[in-house]
């Protein structure tokens, strides 16, 4: 670390909104510096005389601080004292200084001050013309990875942390009657007037302090310095319960139906890491009845040769640094302006005791009060002229000025050089229309102010102040008050009385003369041969580059933007876009409105992923759903599988067991004695109504009319296309009362499906659906000893095969708890599904284990369940189906009724010609030649493994396991025409070049007659 400590050589002795009694130490590129509380990182760097803050993207030219706010293109730094707290893309102009802040420049590889790339950059004009990416890197494609790595490193786009961010981020939702964006003069008066009506008002501003330009203006409001008026308004607003004030909160997005997203930085100004328990950044999500945009305007720099040399700044930024931060970023200033407002920077510079070399006014005959003031101050005003070129590399050393013609497109002579270290340019103002664009509104050009203002919108939106092209303070205050009142009234609050509107009177407003429409300063050389004239600093787009783009035929401004990358940086071209459009328009001999504008998208400034994620991360990323017996599973060593959002026991390994060992043991226990599965996650839908049976017949492919009370039936559910999408067992509880089970993952979808058809097609059917998934705990007791085990737990259910048949259900008591017991089987063994109210699920589960010890009752998980059912050839909807298979494709034609009078969902779809073709992919069993080999699921079947690639693929494997009970591997999969190919061989080529051969067989590998479950 470099301990060289620089003095704050550019800091004034007095003034500004900084606290000289509170010094703040910080580190920039390894060097320790000092600033004060109230500084931004940018103002502190400037105070310490740091000129170069980065290297440019393409040409690696040294770059300095240009602006004082969100529009800053160059001072985009990497922050963070530790790896975990790294934050990229922080604008130094918006980062408040705190003790211990560590910042690094990113655009300087290998170092910002002196690097290799700058020498390449010198010839970079040839190397990296516009369209560079398209032209250079298209071929050879194999080298793209190399190019990209190099470019990203050289470009220095910042980096994400390699460690987890320890800070807390969150989201909060609000509803507002009036949302005011921006707390400058217009926003403050809008919020004040709206707040006084009692409406719910939110006022947000990206800066630490409310007031905007008023914090450093010389104007007098209601007899008070502007900043004092601000303090009074903020005090009044703070007392209103109906008003929420959000400083340090950037309104980053304006979305449909007046939905606003605000990125609030709550502790970024305090420390590298948020104080314990505090939320670092909060995303406010606001639904507003009315929105007042008072986002102000951004000053446009002028485009002149070498206008990127450190020391070239916006005129307004210079005023801000002097007046607000008490920093004069240089010694000798040349100001170039197209308008009266620009003069203020020279006045402030002079008031700070530094030398104003000249004011270069591009207008031939400026007449405003400011010109008189300049003369009074004995400042040299050079009229009808412009700074056509800057001298210097790491800092401005002088300027070349020349006379220009009246329209400003030609140098007319009188070329001479002035010595200076700072150039301020004032090219007029661009209203900050960004947010109004977010919902699709196109900005409109106004000739009178030479700028785009928000265009027509469908949002409930009002605009006030500089965003509306109203730059006079009195107009800002008046428009703000008016919009605040109108917005509140529209939202149902207050009367629009004049009394409310009298917010403030400006006492010292000065008259202005017309400004000149000038964007691109001419040079003695043609643009293509003049030194680079930068339009977009961050993406290194030059005036010449835009001319090249239009010459090459890119006439749409959207194409010019993409071809040159103008506006593609993290600053979205806040400074450069309008200049770029003007240059494109000029080179195509069109007007700016004819050329059109690109529109801005969220976010206004870069936002952290933390703020986007909020609390939805880590354990809370997605809900984890648990059954009532989950604790038991954890205690007994289960590993879990995600099924939808559910955590289901996957298998229960014992010490030292491999997964296959566990599966073998669990499978054998079920086949030999008895096992138990927690089946609570299956979807369960309670269906009541006299037409319930009819409804079931319409949504399932099989028949339901004859299902008696006390009986269960398996059903397949298809879409209108005839493709299977879910399955399950439904039981008839009473004449008009059924309970349907669905797959675990399909529960919500099936319920919505039933409601869709009931509500939109068959509302005449009397039926109600209610989810009871969570209400019942389901314990599946399966295996030859399941009856004996269950008999020990119930004394009011006759479990004998005669009385309690396969696919029957009975009510009774199990382990002292009322239960519905279903005799259904997904394992092929004698099985009972015990359903009890979920509050008692754990109790019954434990009692079953107490009784089950002597039968070696074994808990089994989903993987064992999969093996057991695959041994029986039972499908799993979603694993063995993929939305493209009919019941017939599954070999389940037995589950399709063609006798039902109603054309049930799926019937017509299944009858399509394509669905009836004999050669469709059909589900079959697969037995590998080598009984130990398990075919990978997803493996593709081919008839001839020697066929040259691309081979003809016949289908794929959907389920594949090793069956310990059978002593060989088993699989199910689709094979084209497979049902007619029993006994034939198919081949599964593997990525390693080997081929697995299998024989097509029935998918029922075990007990084809079903004798085991019918005992």
């Amino acid at each position: 670390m470099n301990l060289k400590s620089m003095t704050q050589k550019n800091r004034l002795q007095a003034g500004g909104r900084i606290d000289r009694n509170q010094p703040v130490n910080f580190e920039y590129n390894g060097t320790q510096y000092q600033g004060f509380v109230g500084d931004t990182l940018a103002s502190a760097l400037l105070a310490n005389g740091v000129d170069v803050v980065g290297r440019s993207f393409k040409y690696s030219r040294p770059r300095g601080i240009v602006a004082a706010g969100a529009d800053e293109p160059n001072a985009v730094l990497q922050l963070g004292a530790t790896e975990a707290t790294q934050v990229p893309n922080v604008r130094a102009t918006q980062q408040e200084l705190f003790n211990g802040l560590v910042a690094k420049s990113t655009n300087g590889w290998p170092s910002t001050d002196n690097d290799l790339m700058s020498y390449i950059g010198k010839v970079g004009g040839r190397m990296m013309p516009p369209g560079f990416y398209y032209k250079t890197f298209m071929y050879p494609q194999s080298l793209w990875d190399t190019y990209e790595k190099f470019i990203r490193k050289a470009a220095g786009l910042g980096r994400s942390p390699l460690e987890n961010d320890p800070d807390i981020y969150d989201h909060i939702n609000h509803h507002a009657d009036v949302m005011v964006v921006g707390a400058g003069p217009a926003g403050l008066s809008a919020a004040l007037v709206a707040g006084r009506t009692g409406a719910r008002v939110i006022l947000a501003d990206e800066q630490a302090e409310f007031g905007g330009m008023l914090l450093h203006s010389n104007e007098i409001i209601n007899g008070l310095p502007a900043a004092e008026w601000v303090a009074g308004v903020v005090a009044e607003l703070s007392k209103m319960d109906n008003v929420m004030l959000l400083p340090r909160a950037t309104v980053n997005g304006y979305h449909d139906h007046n939905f606003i997203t605000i990125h609030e930085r709550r502790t970024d100004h305090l420390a590298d890491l948020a104080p314990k328990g505090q939320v670092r950044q909060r995303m406010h999500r606001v639904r507003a009845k009315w929105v007042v945009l008072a986002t102000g305007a951004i000053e446009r720099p002028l485009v002149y040769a070498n206008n990127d040399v450190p020391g070239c700044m916006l005129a307004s930024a210079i005023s801000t640094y002097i007046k607000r931060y008490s920093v004069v970023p240089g010694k000798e200033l040349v100001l170039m302006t197209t308008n009266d407002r620009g003069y203020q920077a020279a006045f402030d510079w002079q008031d700070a005791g530094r030398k104003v070399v000249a004011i270069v006014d591009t207008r031939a005959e400026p007449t405003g009060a400011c010109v008189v003031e300049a003369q009074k101050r004995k400042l040299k005003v050079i009229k009808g002229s412009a700074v056509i070129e800057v001298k210097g590399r790491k800092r401005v050393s002088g300027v070349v000025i020349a006379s220009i013609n009246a329209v400003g497109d030609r140098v007319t002579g009188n070329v001479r050089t002035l010595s200076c270290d700072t150039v301020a340019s004032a090219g007029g103002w661009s209203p900050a229309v960004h947010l109004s664009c977010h919902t699709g509104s196109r900005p409109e050009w106004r000739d009178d102010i030479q700028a785009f203002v928000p265009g027509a919108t469908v949002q409930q939106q009002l605009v006030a102040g500089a965003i509306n092209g109203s730059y006079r303070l009195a107009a800002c205050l008046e428009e703000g008050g008016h919009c605040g009142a109108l917005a509140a009234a529209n939202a149902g609050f207050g009367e629009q009385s004049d009394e409310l509107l009298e917010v403030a009177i400006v006492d010292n407003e000065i008259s202005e003369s017309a400004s000149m429409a000038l964007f691109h300063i001419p040079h003695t050389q043609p643009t293509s041969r003049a030194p680079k004239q930068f339009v977009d600093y961050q993406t290194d787009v030059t005036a010449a580059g835009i001319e090249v783009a239009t010459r090459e035929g890119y006439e749409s401004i959207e194409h010019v933007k993409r071809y040159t990358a103008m506006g593609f940086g993290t600053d979205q071209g806040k400074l450069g876009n309008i200049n770029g459009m003007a240059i494109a328009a000029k080179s195509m001999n069109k007007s700016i409105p004819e050329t059109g504008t690109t529109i801005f998208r969220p976010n206004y400034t870069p936002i952290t992923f933390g703020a986007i994620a909020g609390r939805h991360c880590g354990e809370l990323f997605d809900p984890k759903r648990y059954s009532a017996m989950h604790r038991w599973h954890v205690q007994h060593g289960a590993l879990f599988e995600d099924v939808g959002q559910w955590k289901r026991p996957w298998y229960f390994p014992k010490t030292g067991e491999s997964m296959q060992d566990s599966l073998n043991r669990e499978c054998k226990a079920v086949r030999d004695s008895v096992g138990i599965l927690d089946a609570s996650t299956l979807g369960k839908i309670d269906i009541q109504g006299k037409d319930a049976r009819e409804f079931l017949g319409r949504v399932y492919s099989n028949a339901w009319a004859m299902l008696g009370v006390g009986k269960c039936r398996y059903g397949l559910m298809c879409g209108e296309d005839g493709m299977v999408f879910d399955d399950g067992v439904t039981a008839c509880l009473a004449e008009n009362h059924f309970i349907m089970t669905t797959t675990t993952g399909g529960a919500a979808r099936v319920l919505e499906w039933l409601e869709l058809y009931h509500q939109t097609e068959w509302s005449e059917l009397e039926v109600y659906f209610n989810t009871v998934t969570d209400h019942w705990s389901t314990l599946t007791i399966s295996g030859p000893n399941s009856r004996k085990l269950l008999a020990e737990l119930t004394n009011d259910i006759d479990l004998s095969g005669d009385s309690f048949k396969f696919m029957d259900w009975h009510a009774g008591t199990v382990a002292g708890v009322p239960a519905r017991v279903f005799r259904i089987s997904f394992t092929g063994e004698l099985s009972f599904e015990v359903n009890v109210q979920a509050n008692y699920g754990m109790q019954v589960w434990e009692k079953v284990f107490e009784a089950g010890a002597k039968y070696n009752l074994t808990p089994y998980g989903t993987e064992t369940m999969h093996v057991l059912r695959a041994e029986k050839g039972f499908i799993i909807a979603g694993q063995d189906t993929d939305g493209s298979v009919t019941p017939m494709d599954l070999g389940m034609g037995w589950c399709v009724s063609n006798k039902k009078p109603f054309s049930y969902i799926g019937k017509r779809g299944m009858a399509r010609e394509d669905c009836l073709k004999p050669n469709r992919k059909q589900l079959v069993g697969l037995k590998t030649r080598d009984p130990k080999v398990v075919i990978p699921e997803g493996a593709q079947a081919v008839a001839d493994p020697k066929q040259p690639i691309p081979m003809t693929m016949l289908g794929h494997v959907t389920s594949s396991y090793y069956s310990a009970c059978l002593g060989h591997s088993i699989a199910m999969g689709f094979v084209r025409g497979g049902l007619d190919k029993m006994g034939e061989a198919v081949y599964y080529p593997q990525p390693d070049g080997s081929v697995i051969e299998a024989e097509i067989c029935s998918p029922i590998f075990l007990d084809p007659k079903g004798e085991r479950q019918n005992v």
Partner: protein
Amino acid sequence: MFSIYCPYCEEHREEDEFHAKGQAHIARPLDPESYSDKEWGEYLYFRDNPRGLHHELWVHATGCRKFFNISRDTLSYEIKETYKVGEQPHFTVNQDK
């Protein structure tokens, strides 16, 4: 994020309570068997994709679970109206023009 008036709850709710279910007013044919494969395919898969006014079916998924219709401008995303299943829209393309 849309703000959607649920005609059953009778107030505006945030979009995260709803699911979009595609084009509205696509009635299931009463006699599917009389449809040719082509006609059935059109019923199943072919949907309008208008620039401007569109009628959509939505469901108040985490609210009252009721399906209803929305007349929405696909350009501006304005929701002109919401109405219950079985009701007809007040805004239609012809009238809108």
